[in-house]
């Protein structure tokens, strides 16, 4: 069948089940039912601290075919997923589903567990590195399911993704299971992505390298959700958890793109008091923040909030009074961690509060402007951030689709060509985010406004900004690079890309 972004998808996918086709970004909003969760209540004198991961696994009743979950706040420094899977493998358990909010290169040992049948299914909002390559090459028994950050929270809350055991890497935890991310040698700040797992998993195991006396205030994930606590030497490598500083690009092309994006935001009239904003931690995205900051200061604009993964640069803007508050689902650097710890208006948020389309209002719905990246954009404004130019999975939506759907102005910033390849193409390899939610594409050579946004085009009709159609930008790119040959895939589906509402927006097939 053909879905709303013109993708041919099967009605049934082996290892996934019946497919609900993507019908449009806002087609599936309305009455929803949240699932209930079976838990074991505790008696007053029960103890939660166990001597080892193996003990926790046995206490939780680990068995073949279970779904275990992990969060990615320790990013490319995470040790917990590997530690847990190694113990499970030793117990001879097979056929597990790993529901990790993201998978990074540090999770390379997972490939062996895929090969030997310990893990046969994966859910992730983002994956890069050896595991992503293994999935792309068809090593995983069943297709991986790619969520958005908000979509994962939705899937957990609705029961679409049932978690048997959630393992929560806890930078600080007390003896009764209260967790925070702001203290300890592995401090990572907000633990927003782990919250739905804690609330809806049947069993929750906190794994910490900083066990403290009760209570571990401030409490981010509370004792009411946590079954067991295990202490290990290290939950992660601090170097991979948060970067020292995130920097604005010095690349002139990145700066040109960022400046154009900031001018666009200003010219369409969104830069005014009460402004709300989100951008990523990449050099160009941060540079947009820098140019936006200049305009805000010049015009004495006081914004409402900045959201998302928070960087030190955004913290600086907040501390200068340019935003009243920060909504933080994940801290990207040490400065953000410090600010999250010390500032009351630096507010943590769960993945559900951040981007779940099936709750009573996510933060993304209140965003004025979102700055997004892309590996490809097509002439329908569909964006691919899932697969690279060779068809291998290199990422995934993360919050891309959630913020694009929520923000009043969703801007993709990208170079027109990268590594001698055009970025604007007729048809993206994989649709991650539907074009109907993307309002503008800003490149160094010009800006394309989605024709659905006639209101924006009207506001920009006297602008000096270099406005082109998306087809004109595509032609400019192709004039420089030519048209690349199409990537060839096998028929086998190796990943299912779910839109935030749980419908299937695209599939990824095995690379040849």
């Amino acid at each position: 069948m053909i879905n709303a972004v013109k993708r041919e998808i099967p009605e049934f996918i082996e290892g996934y089940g019946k497919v609900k086709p993507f019908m449009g970004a806002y087609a599936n909003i309305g009455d929803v039912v949240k699932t209930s969760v079976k838990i074991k209540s505790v008696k007053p004198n029960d103890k939660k601290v166990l001597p080892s991961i193996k003990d926790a696994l046995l206490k939780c009743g680990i068995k073949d075919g279970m779904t275990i979950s992990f969060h990615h706040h320790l990013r490319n420094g995470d040790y917990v997923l590997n530690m847990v899977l190694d113990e499970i493998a030793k117990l001879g358990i097979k056929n597990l589903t790993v529901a990790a909010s993201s998978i990074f290169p540090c999770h390379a040992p997972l490939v062996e567990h895929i090969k030997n049948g310990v893990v046969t299914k994966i859910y992730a909002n983002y994956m890069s590195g050896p595991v992503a390559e293994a999935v792309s090459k068809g090593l995983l028994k069943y297709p991986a399911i790619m969520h958005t950050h908000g979509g994962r929270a939705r899937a957990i809350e609705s029961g679409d993704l049932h978690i048997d055991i959630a393992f929560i890497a806890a930078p600080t935890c007390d003896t009764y299971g209260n967790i925070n991310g702001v203290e300890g040698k592995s401090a990572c700040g907000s633990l927003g992505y782990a919250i739905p797992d804690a609330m809806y998993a049947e069993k929750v195991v906190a794994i910490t390298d900083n066990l403290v006396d009760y209570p571990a205030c401030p409490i981010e994930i509370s004792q009411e959700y946590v079954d067991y606590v295990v202490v290990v030497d290290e939950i992660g490598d601090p170097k991979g958890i948060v970067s020292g500083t995130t920097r604005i690009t010095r690349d002139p092309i990145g700066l040109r793109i960022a400046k154009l994006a900031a001018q666009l935001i200003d010219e369409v009239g969104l830069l005014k008091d009460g402004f709300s904003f989100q951008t990523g931690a990449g050099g160009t995205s941060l540079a947009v923040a820098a140019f936006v900051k200049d305009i805000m200061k010049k015009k004495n604009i006081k914004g409402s909030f900045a959201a998302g993964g928070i960087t030190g640069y955004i913290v600086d803007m907040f501390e200068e009074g340019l935003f009243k508050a920060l909504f933080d689902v994940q801290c990207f650097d040490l400065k953000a961690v410090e600010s999250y710890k010390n500032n009351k208006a630096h507010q943590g948020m769960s993945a559900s509060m951040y981007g779940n389309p099936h709750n009573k209002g996510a933060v993304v719905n209140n965003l004025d402007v979102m700055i997004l990246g892309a590996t490809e954009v097509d002439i329908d404004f569909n964006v691919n951030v899932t697969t690279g130019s060779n068809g291998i999975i290199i990422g995934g939506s993360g919050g891309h689709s959630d913020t694009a759907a929520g923000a009043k102005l969703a801007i993709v910033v990208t170079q027109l060509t990268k590594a001698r390849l055009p970025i604007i193409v007729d048809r993206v390899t994989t649709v991650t985010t539907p074009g109907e939610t993307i309002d503008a594409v800003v490149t160094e050579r010009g800006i394309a406004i989605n024709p659905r946004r006639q209101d924006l085009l009207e506001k920009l009709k006297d602008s000096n900004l270099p406005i082109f159609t998306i087809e004109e930008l595509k032609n400019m790119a192709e004039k420089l690079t030519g048209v690349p040959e199409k990537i060839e895939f096998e028929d086998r589906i190796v990943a299912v890309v779910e839109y935030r509402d749980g419908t299937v927006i695209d599939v990824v097939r095995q690379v040849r």
Partner: protein
Amino acid sequence: MRRSMLFIPGNNPSMIQNSPFLGADSIILDLEDAVSLDEKDSARCLVRNALLSLDFNGCEKVVRINSISSGFGYDDIDAIARIKPDAFLIPKATEDDIEEIDSLISTIEREEGFKLGCIKLIPLIETAFGVEDVFNIIKSSKRIVAVLLGAEDLTADMGIKRTKEGEEIFYARSRIASVCAALKVDAIDTPFTDVNDFEGLRKDAEKAKLIGMSGKAAINPRQIDVINEVFSPSFDDINWAKRVIEAYEKAKMEGKGVFALDGKMVDAPILLRAKNIIEKAKAIGLIKG
């Protein structure tokens, strides 16, 4: 309009490809100092093909050739003039060089069927002799549209220290600005070499503008915005100019020969200054019309 002229190494395809989209008014594709001796041929070939195939987005296309005395200059002119760049930048320019180059280009223009004089010249003044002889250098060819001051070589030639403050080039700037104004060509200021000091760049550009330089060369794309800002009329300037012109139109309607604005008499030079500001603002796109 030459507020900013950006030097781009002639041997770097990626930088050449992106250079027209960085906001500079002119792009100087450099075959001289940026290119090592063993890359002269390949850079010439690259620059030629770039000029033939790339969209320069309305930027002026200038090629800095090697000096005639280096032996590479003749090949540069022969290869590049045949594809009609907007201008050549001539290093360590002398009257003799300019006359010889003018003649070579005229021959090529005739052979290629180009309009005679369509390829312009910009002498690079970077010796003490060049500073003193700048009037004659400009007069030596009708192709000359601007002069670029090269302060690094100039101060080396004079055996004096080059400083950030630039007091040592006050005379050279003043002389070039004055001669260029007299002969109606653009006076382009020397690059500011600390590419991470934007405040220093701004001060340096403002100093040059005050003396009468009309634009400035850039050696890093990140310098362009500051340079363009300094050499563009400010919004206050534009508003003042609009008010002068409105007052002038009103006085003309009322049959008044002289008139005052904000208590100050407006005479012909002030009106001319106001008209120049409006013209410049229109050319840059700061105002419509």
